[in-house]
């Protein structure tokens, strides 16, 4: 990593991790160097070897780097929680379940931090959606199992597997 004009890298937490930086915050100069644009104009040019910064931005698939939530910045956690929440609307109650289980500790048991309030909100809403889906699914399954034989042709049409033997 080189800085121009001998200026020191600023103290500000420019987190040099893929979690904090996005592609828009800099530009690639050459194949393996990345010019980091700092959020404020300090006249510093930080050229950093790409591979140190953007494992996810390197050619190749984007990795899911941080499964360990402890190592993830709060902002990132919020982002993840929100994405999971929004994703659940695509008929994915399982995603909501994962959201609740994964972020439960973050939202309710961890010491308070800035984004925790929002994360809590998302977890609550995911849980709500999950309960709704569970109720709906359970009632449908119950209705179907009880009435399948009685429905005759409709029951067969709806069935994926039809059990053998006398209903």
């Amino acid at each position: 990593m080189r800085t121009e004009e001998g200026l020191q890298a600023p103290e500000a937490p420019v987190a040099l991790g893929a979690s904090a930086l996005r592609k828009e915050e800099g530009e690639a100069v050459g194949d393996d160097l990345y010019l980091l644009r700092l959020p404020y104009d300090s006249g510093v040019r930080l050229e950093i070897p790409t591979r140190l910064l953007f494992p996810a931005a390197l050619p190749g698939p984007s990795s899911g780097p941080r499964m360990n939530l402890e190592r993830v910045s709060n902002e990132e956690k919020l982002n993840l929680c929100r994405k999971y929440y929004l994703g659940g609307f695509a008929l994915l109650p399982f995603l909501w379940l994962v959201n609740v289980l994964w972020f439960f500790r973050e939202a309710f048991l961890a010491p308070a931090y800035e984004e925790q309030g929002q994360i809590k909100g998302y977890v609550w809403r995911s849980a709500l959606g999950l309960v709704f889906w569970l109720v709906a699914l359970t009632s449908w399954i119950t209705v179907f199992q009880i009435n399948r034989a009685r429905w005759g042709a409709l029951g067969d049409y709806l069935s994926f597997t039809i059990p053998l033997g006398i209903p």
Partner: protein
Amino acid sequence: MKGFVQKKGTRRSKRGSSRSSSLEEDEEEEELTLKYGAKHVIMLFVPVTLCMVVVVATIKSVRFYTEKNGQLIYTPFTEDTPSIGQRLLNSVLNTLIMISVIVVMTIFLVVLYKYRCYKFIHGWLILSSLMLLFLFTYIYLGEVLKTYNVAMDYPTLFLVIWNFGAVGMICIHWKGPLVLQQAYLIMISALMALVFIKYLPEWSAWVILGAISVYDLVAVLCPKGPLRMLVETAQERNEPIFPALIYSSAMVWTVGMAKVDTPTKGALPKDGEQDEDSSDPSGDHSYSETYDSPRCTPLHVPSYAVEELEEEEERGVKLGLGDFIFYSVLVGKAAATASGDWNTTLACFVAILIGLCLTLLLLAVFKKALPALPISITFGLIFYFSTDNLVRPFMDTLASHQLYI
């Protein structure tokens, strides 16, 4: 497997660029390695066992996977022949075809990687995982429901499969909880193994298992082997190879150090360079490999076990999913076809675990990419044939004569 010790400012690579890192580091590293080796062995036992348990349970209960229902196009020769010689010949031919398909696929992959066609590879892998997660799960679910004589309606089925598949894609290719990702990897390995068990004819399966261990050995250890070239290219470029299917048992922390390159098909192109500035301790790259590329039937990049060394305490061990698949195929086949029933299955299971232990031990000693298949499969095959043909009749005779030893 490659182990690189991450020390500040120094880089130790296979090319021995800075031998200045003294012998003490070497010894320290050895100690650390061996100390953690045992823990990692156990960490890999659990998923391998789980996968095998799932496969064996399915084989024993769901008849579908043991019924002969046609063969894949990769094994065109039938084994329904009148004479034994003919059957043997057919199975050898089947094996040749299968292995050449695999070799071609691997070389194709290496070429694609060399010429940086990442999008193509990425797309291919996504397609494969889609197929595995949706199609095979659909079939599997259907068969299990039929076996247990349970009625299931289309709407519920659609919902279940859609949820399973979509969350699987998210976990594997994007971000998700590690445990869930591991679970999904185990499940898709089991599904893949079941497909193999169903569609590979008897003798061909055994010959293929043997041949693929040999291929694995060659591909990983020979200088011109495709897998080795893949690994070396990735190392040169210092980048993650491609979303390979790799199971990782733990996460690796790099505190205040350079980022860990994501592991590839076993090789860890560990980037040893430090961020000299280290002004940012939040170089939080608790990397776990979410590089899982679904492996489609033809694509068999046999993988090898990998071990990562970090300065931190936590280290991960990685094993490619191809290994999971073939271990499970071996044990599943033993469960499906052995006349000795559980004896043989258990013997094969133990053999594979012993092989895995030895492989990991060698990994700790050699610290370079090693194929995980040969030792385990060899032991497995030996145990299978000897148990089936020697131990079982022996036990039967003993039991019938009421002799307990």
